[in-house]
């Protein structure tokens, strides 16, 4: 019953192989993390303290705007600039069957043979926010493998999947022409989180309106960085270099302005809160008869005998020892 990853080597050995650039070790480690094997936590303890040097770029935006295609072009561009590039591409898990089709690799063909590129597809497995629970732990693995730039592609996101902005250094919002009028763009949420906005498929009609609408609503959150709105036709490679330039400029800005430390603290807080919630659930599950108690609690809420908050508090209360 061991997972692929647990089958073979010890965590320490996997970490050692990882540091020599062994892709198989990296791939296995990511599976360990995804399957939530106990070894995964040990591995992350090993690699976390040396992580943090890579530039993590999140790409988000509605389905079909060209996020994967844009990443494949940026990947080529940054390889030319001598960078080692990792990609974690997230696609949704079916809430009904637990299965998933992970199709982002289709747009990123031919990159796998490059030893300095690592692409991994990941299913959300029920995690909200357009990411998977394992996504950023996998980013740490790619850093340990020697990647100095990592792209994280979210699930095609609608309006409120904003977690990526709290966890990546630079967030790119990818839109396309004619995907909504000025009112859609005025709404809160995903359109507020970009450090860079890309209007892809600019060869379609309506690009000027989209660019103009975006330019109006982009908030001035950060005094030192005005988020640019750039145009691309990623399928043809048009406009990709300026995007790469601005990504580098933003990384430079984060480092020079001290904003990086601010964002790292925000990331640490998001991750800690998430880990605390997860740890509470894990502890609860580890108690005797937890499944039976949980089922009973669900039943009480469903039958309106008690409200959900009261039940949750009750379950979390330390157990009596008598």
């Amino acid at each position, binding site marked *: *019953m061991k*997972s*692929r*990853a647990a*089958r073979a080597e010890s965590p320490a050995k996997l970490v050692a192989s990882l540091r020599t650039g062994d*892709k*198989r070790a*990296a*791939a*296995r480690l*990511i*599976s360990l993390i*995804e*399957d*939530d094997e106990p070894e995964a936590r040990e591995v992350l303890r090993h690699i976390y303290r040396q992580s943090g040097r890579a530039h993590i770029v999140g790409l988000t935006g509605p389905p079909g705007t060209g996020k994967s295609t844009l990443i494949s072009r940026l990947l080529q561009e940054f390889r030319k600039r001598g960078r080692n590039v990792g990609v974690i591409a997230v696609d949704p*898990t*079916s809430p009904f*069957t*637990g*299965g*998933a*089709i*992970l*199709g982002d*690799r*289709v747009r990123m*063909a*031919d990159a*796998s*043979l490059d030893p300095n590129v*690592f*692409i*991994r*597809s990941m*299913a959300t*497995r029920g995690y909200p926010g357009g990411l998977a629970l394992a996504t950023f732990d996998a980013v740490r693995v790619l850093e340990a493998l020697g990647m100095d730039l990592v792209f994280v592609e979210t699930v095609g996101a609608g309006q409120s999947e904003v977690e990526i902005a709290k966890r990546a250094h630079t967030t790119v919002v990818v839109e396309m022409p004619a995907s909504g009028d000025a009112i859609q763009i005025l709404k809160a949420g995903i359109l507020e989180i970009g450090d860079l906005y890309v209007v892809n498929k600019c060869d379609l009609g309506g690009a000027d309106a989209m660019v103009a609408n975006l330019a109006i609503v982009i908030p001035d959150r950060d005094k030192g960085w005005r988020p640019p709105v750039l145009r691309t036709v990623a399928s043809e490679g048009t406009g990709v270099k300026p995007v790469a330039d601005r990504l580098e400029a933003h990384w430079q800005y984060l480092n020079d302005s001290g904003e990086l430390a601010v964002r790292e603290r925000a990331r640490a807080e998001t991750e800690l809160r998430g880990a605390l919630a997860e740890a509470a659930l894990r502890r609860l599950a580890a108690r005797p008869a937890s499944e039976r108690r949980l089922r009973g609690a669900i039943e009480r809420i469903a039958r309106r005998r008690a409200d959900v908050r009261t039940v949750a508090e009750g379950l979390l209360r330390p157990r009596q020892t008598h």
Partner: protein
Amino acid sequence: MAKKIRVLMAKPGLDGHDRGVKVIARALRDAGMEVIYTGLRQSPDDIVAAAIEEDVDAIGLSSLSGAHMTLFPKVVQILKKKKAGDIVVAGGGIIPPEDVPKLKKAGLKGVFGPGTTLQEIVDFFQKNAGRSR
């Protein structure tokens, strides 16, 4: 979290028809598997490199153009060379019955010709790419 079966579906060679492989990808998804689809015109080297990065349990190859006798065994050979011979390889498509034993001898665990049902393919991956590996 329960362990998921991960399967890479790929089309080696030059044939440009991928309706079949998409239907199978969908069936595996509906059976609860994570299916990585890599698209058309992949070389055996591309397929193996992707399979390693994705840490899959199995690879499903589809070929309709008659190149299966060259390309399918090549994938198995490269996997072995990359010390990833534990990844199960299956192939399907327009495969004449007389080629089936040859492909199995070359290391393919499953070979599926015309007329195979989706359920047979789902069962194959569940049995051979599952937890017992």
